[in-house]
C-alpha cells in the first residue's frame, strides 16, 4: 500500500524536481567566449573525404582542411594553391604515309615558321610516320592553321581513327599538357611532406571504380599523369578540354595513408577523421551534433588566428535561427522574407549577392505548340517577372537573362531580357495563328492553347511561380493547368522521360562555362539533361568550340554569343536569379589575410567579394582575440 503510493506520487514528484533543477541550472549557464568560430549547417556531411563527397555541407567542412592545386581568388581568378605556378602547352601530332613524308613536312614547317613567327611553335619532332609539333598554348586554333598550311602545300596528313564511338575521325591529334610546380614547404597534418606522389595518387583514386568518385567525369580526358620530380606534375589530355583546368581545384589526398589501403576500408580509417594540408586540422565528430576542427599552426601560409571552428548540425531552419539569436552560431543564411526586418537592425551585418542559380520554365519543344518561336516569345512577354521577384522573393533577386548568372566571369550583361508586355504578347500570338476562342482561350486549327505546368512539392518558390504564371497567361488567352508532384515522382515520370508540357525548375551550376550536358542536341535521350529537346546547330557548335578554347577573352566572347543565341531561342522562360543573404552579429569577425608579397598581411572588415563573403574564412579573427602581430600592422 505504502509502496504503491510511493510510486504513484514519488516518481512524478522526483521528475518534476529534476526538471526544475535542470532548468535552473540551464539558466545559470553562459556561453564562454572562446576563440572559436561556430557555424550552423542544416545537413550533416556525408563524408570528409573530398573525392567521395557531393553535398555542400561536406565541401564546406572539408574546404577548411584540404587544398587543391589551384583555387579561386577573391575575384574568381584561378590562382595557385598547392601549386606555385603552372603552364599549359600542347603537342599536336600529324600522321603521314611514311617516315620520309613526315621528314619532308617537318622541313616545310621549319621554313614556314621562319616566315610566319606568329605561330606559337616551340619544337618539331619526327617519330616514324608522325610529325609532333610542340605548341606554347593549348586549343585547336593553331593546329588547324598548321594542318591547313600542310594541306595547301600538298603535304597531306592522314586522318586518325575516332577516339571514341560516335566521334568523327580527327585530322590530327591535339593533346594539351598541364605542368604544375608544387610548393615545397607543405606538410600533411601528421607531419609527412606533401609531394607530387600525393597528386598522382589522388588522380588514380578518383579514376578507381572501387572509390566510385562523383568527380570522375572531370578527369576522364586525362591520358596520363606523370611525376618527373617530387615537386612537379605533368598531366596530358587526349584532346583539348578547357573546363579541365578548374578541375585541379580538387582537394588532394595523402598517398602515404591511403595508397596501401583498400578503398572499402576508407570510411573506417579515414573518411571521418581525415588528414589534410589545410589551415585547420580535424579534431572530433559527434554524429548529428557537431564537427570540430582546430587550427593547424604549421599551415603553409601561416597559422590561422582562430583556435578552432565548430560546425553544428542543426537540421531545422527555425532552430538554426534560434541558435544564431542566442549566439550559439555566428552566421545565419536568411530567407528572403526575413531580410527586410534585419536590414536596418544595427546589431547585424548582412551580406547579400545574386546566387549562383536561376529559376526557369522549360518548354517541351517536342510539343507542336512550343515549336513556334513566336509562341515562346509571347509566353515570355506575358509573364510579369518583376512582379514575381517582388512577391515571391520579396525583391531579393534580379531578372534572369539567360543560361549564366551575374556572378560568373563569362556572364554577358549585354543580353537584354524580354520585358513584360502583354500587348506585344497578344499580337505575337495573333501572328502565330492563335486566335481567341469563345471561352477566351486562344484556338488554332481546332486546338486550344492549353498546357499543363509541372512543379515539385515542397518547393514554395516554384509552387508560387506556377500560380503567378497561370494567372498571367490567362490574361493573354492561354490556359495553364498546374500540377504539383513530389520531386522524385516528377523526375521519374516526367522529366527523365521527356514527357511533359512545361515545367518549373532551377539550375545551380557553379562557375563552369561548359553547359554541353544541358543544351547539346545529342543530350536529349531519357535521363539526359536536355530534357526539353532543344536543338540548334549553332549552339551545338558553340558548345563544342567553347569547351576546347583556353583563351580567356575568347571564352568570354563565345560564352556571350552562346548566352545570346540561347536567349533569342527562348527554349526556357528565364525567370530570376534569387539573392542569397547571410547575417553576422555586427563586428563579430574581421579578416587578416596574407597579401600578394611575402610577409605582407592585409587587415579588413568582413566584406562581400566576387567569391562571396566567406571566401577568406580561414583568416577570420575575433576582435576580442587580436592576432599576434605577424608582419605589418593593419
Amino acid at each position, binding site marked *: *500500500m505504502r509502496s*504503491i503510493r510511493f510510486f*504513484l506520487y514519488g516518481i512524478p514528484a522526483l521528475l518534476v524536481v529534476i526538471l526544475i533543477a535542470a532548468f535552473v541550472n*540551464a539558466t545559470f549557464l553562459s556561453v564562454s567566449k572562446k576563440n572559436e568560430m561556430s557555424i550552423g549547417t542544416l545537413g550533416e556531411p556525408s563524408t570528409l573525404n573530398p573525392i567521395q563527397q557531393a553535398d555542400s555541407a561536406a565541401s564546406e567542412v572539408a574546404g577548411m582542411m584540404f587544398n587543391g592545386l589551384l583555387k579561386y581568388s577573391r575575384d574568381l581568378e584561378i590562382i595557385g594553391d598547392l601549386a606555385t605556378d603552372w603552364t599549359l602547352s600542347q603537342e599536336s601530332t600529324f600522321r603521314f604515309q611514311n617516315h620520309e613524308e613526315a621528314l619532308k613536312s617537318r622541313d616545310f614547317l621549319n621554313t614556314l615558321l621562319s616566315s610566319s613567327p606568329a605561330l606559337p611553335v616551340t619544337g618539331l619532332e619526327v617519330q616514324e610516320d608522325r610529325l609532333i609539333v610542340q605548341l606554347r598554348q593549348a586549343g585547336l586554333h593553331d593546329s588547324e592553321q598548321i594542318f591547313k598550311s600542310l594541306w595547301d602545300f600538298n603535304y597531306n596528313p592522314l586522318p586518325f581513327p575516332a577516339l571514341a564511338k560516335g566521334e568523327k575521325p580527327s585530322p590530327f591529334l591535339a593533346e594539351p599538357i598541364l605542368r604544375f610546380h608544387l610548393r615545397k614547404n607543405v606538410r600533411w597534418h601528421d607531419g609527412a611532406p606533401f609531394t607530387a606522389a600525393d597528386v598522382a595518387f589522388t588522380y588514380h583514386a578518383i579514376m578507381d571504380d572501387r572509390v566510385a568518385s562523383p568527380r570522375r567525369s572531370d578527369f576522364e580526358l586525362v591520358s596520363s599523369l606523370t611525376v618527373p620530380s617530387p615537386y612537379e606534375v605533368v598531366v596530358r589530355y587526349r584532346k583539348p578540354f578547357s573546363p579541365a583546368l578548374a578541375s585541379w581545384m580538387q582537394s588532394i589526398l595523402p598517398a602515404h595513408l591511403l595508397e596501401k589501403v583498400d578503398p572499402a576500408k576508407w570510411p573506417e580509417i579515414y*573518411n571521418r577523421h581525415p588528414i589534410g594540408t589545410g589551415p585547420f586540422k580535424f579534431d572530433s565528430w559527434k554524429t*548529428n551534433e557537431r564537427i570540430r576542427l582546430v587550427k593547424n599552426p604549421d599551415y603553409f601560409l601561416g597559422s590561422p588566428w582562430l583556435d578552432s571552428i565548430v560546425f553544428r548540425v542543426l537540421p531545422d531552419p*527555425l532552430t538554426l535561427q534560434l541558435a544564431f539569436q542566442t549566439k550559439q552560431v555566428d552566421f545565419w543564411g536568411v530567407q528572403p522574407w526575413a531580410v527586410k526586418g534585419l536590414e536596418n537592425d544595427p546589431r547585424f551585418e548582412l551580406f547579400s549577392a545574386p546566387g549562383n542559380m536561376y529559376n526557369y520554365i522549360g518548354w517541351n519543344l517536342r510539343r507542336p505548340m512550343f515549336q513556334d518561336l513566336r509562341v515562346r516569345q509571347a509566353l515570355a512577354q506575358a509573364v510579369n517577372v518583376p512582379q514575381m521577384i517582388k512577391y515571391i522573393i520579396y525583391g531579393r533577386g534580379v531578372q534572369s537573362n539567360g543560361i549564366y548568372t551575374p556572378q560568373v566571369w563569362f556572364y554577358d550583361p549585354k543580353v537584354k531580357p524580354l520585358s513584360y508586355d502583354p500587348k506585344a504578347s497578344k499580337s505575337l500570338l495573333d501572328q502565330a495563328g492563335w486566335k481567341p476562342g469563345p471561352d477566351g482561350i486562344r484556338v488554332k486549327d481546332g486546338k486550344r492553347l492549353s498546357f499543363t505546368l509541372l512543379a515539385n512539392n515542397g518547393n514554395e518558390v516554384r509552387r508560387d511561380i506556377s500560380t503567378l504564371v497561370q494567372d498571367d497567361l490567362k490574361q493573354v488567352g492561354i490556359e495553364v493547368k498546374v500540377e504539383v508532384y513530389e*520531386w522524385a*515522382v516528377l523526375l*521519374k515520370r516526367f522529366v527523365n522521360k521527356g514527357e511533359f508540357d512545361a515545367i518549373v525548375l532551377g539550375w545551380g551550376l557553379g562557375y563552369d562555362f561548359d553547359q554541353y550536358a544541358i543544351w547539346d542536341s545529342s543530350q536529349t535521350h531519357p535521363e539526359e539533361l536536355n530534357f526539353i529537346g532543344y536543338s540548334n546547330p549553332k549552339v551545338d557548335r558553340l558548345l563544342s568550340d567553347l569547351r576546347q578554347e583556353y583563351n580567356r577573352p575568347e571564352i568570354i566572347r563565345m560564352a556571350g554569343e552562346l548566352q545570346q543565341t540561347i536567349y533569342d531561342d527562348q527554349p526556357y522562360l528565364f525567370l530570376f536569379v534569387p539573392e542569397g543573404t547571410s547575417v553576422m552579429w555586427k563586428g563579430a569577425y574581421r579578416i587578416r589575410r596574407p597579401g600578394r608579397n611575402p610577409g605582407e598581411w592585409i587587415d579588413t572588415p568582413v566584406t562581400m567579394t566576387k567569391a562571396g563573403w566567406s571566401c577568406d574564412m580561414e583568416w577570420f579573427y575575433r576582435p576580442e582575440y587580436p592576432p599576434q602581430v605577424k608582419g605589418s600592422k593593419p
Partner: protein
Amino acid sequence: MESFIIRRLGLSLVLLFIISIISFFIVTLTPGSPYPWGELNPKISAEVKANFRKKFHLDRPLPEQYALTMRDLFTGNLRSIKDDRPVMSRIMERLPATLALNVTSILISLSFGTLIGVAAARYAGSWQEVTGSFITFIFIALPGFWISYLLATVLVTNFGVPILGTQSYGIDFPNATAEWLDRLWHLLVPATVLALGGIAAQSRYLRATMIGTMKEDYIRTARAKGLQEDVVLFKHALRNSIRPIISGIGMLLPALISGAVIVENIFAYPGMGRLGYEAVLERDYPTLVALNFVVAALVLLGNLISDILSAAVDPRVRLE
C-alpha cells in the same frame, strides 16, 4: 509460463520476417533514386551512375536485392549509401540517445498518466475532472511539432536557455553536477514533449478501466469492510486495472519512435528518428531497411515485454 514466452517469441520472429519483406519493398518501390549527388547533376556521367548502381546492387532484380540486403544486414556488411559506413554502426551510435529519450519518455507517460488517471477515476464527473479531461484531449490533439516549436522559441528567446543537442555547447561547466543536470535538461525537454500524448492516452485508458473496476462487487465489499477510500483505490481498484497500462507500453513505443522523428529534428537531438528522416530524404535504402528492421525488433520486443508483464500480473492472459 515458459511455453507462453516461447510461443510469443516464435510469433515475433515470424512477424519480424514479414515486416522485413514489407518494409524493403515499401522503401525500394517509392519513386526516386538514391544518388547522393542529386539526380540532375551535369557533372555526373552515365558511367559513374552505372558504377554506383552496381556497387549497391541497385542493378539487380528486386527479390535478389532483398536477399542481398538481408545477407549483408546479418553479416554486418550492409553499407549506407550516404557515407559508405556499415549501417549497423550508424544505427548503434544513435541507439543510446534514442533509448534514453524513449525510456525517459515512457517513464514520464506512465508515472504522470497513472497519477492523472487515478485522480480522474476518483473524481469522475466533478468539474475539476471535466476540466482536466478537456486539457488532456487538447494534448492528444495538438501536433508534436507545434508544441516543440512553441517550447523551443519560448525557452530560447524568453529564458535564454540552450535546448539543442544532448548538451549545451561552448560552455565551461563549473562542476560535474552542473554538467549532468545540463545533460538531463537536454533529455527531459524533448522527452516531455514526446510524452504529452502518452500521458493523455494512458490517463484516459486508466480512468475508463478504473471506473469499470470501481463498480465491481469486491470494491463494494472492501468499502463495506470500512477500508479507507485510498486503500480501496490503490490496493484493490488500481491493482486490478493495471493491465491496460502495461499493454499500453507496447503501444506507446511505435508512437514514440514515429513522434521522435519530428521532435529530434527540431531539438537537433541525435537519435534514430532523425537518422530515419534523413535516410528517407536521401533514399538511403540500406539505412532505411536496417532501421525499419531494428525499430520493428524494438517494437516487437516492447510488445513481448508488455505481454510477459501482463501475463505475470494477470494469470488469465497465459491461457488466452
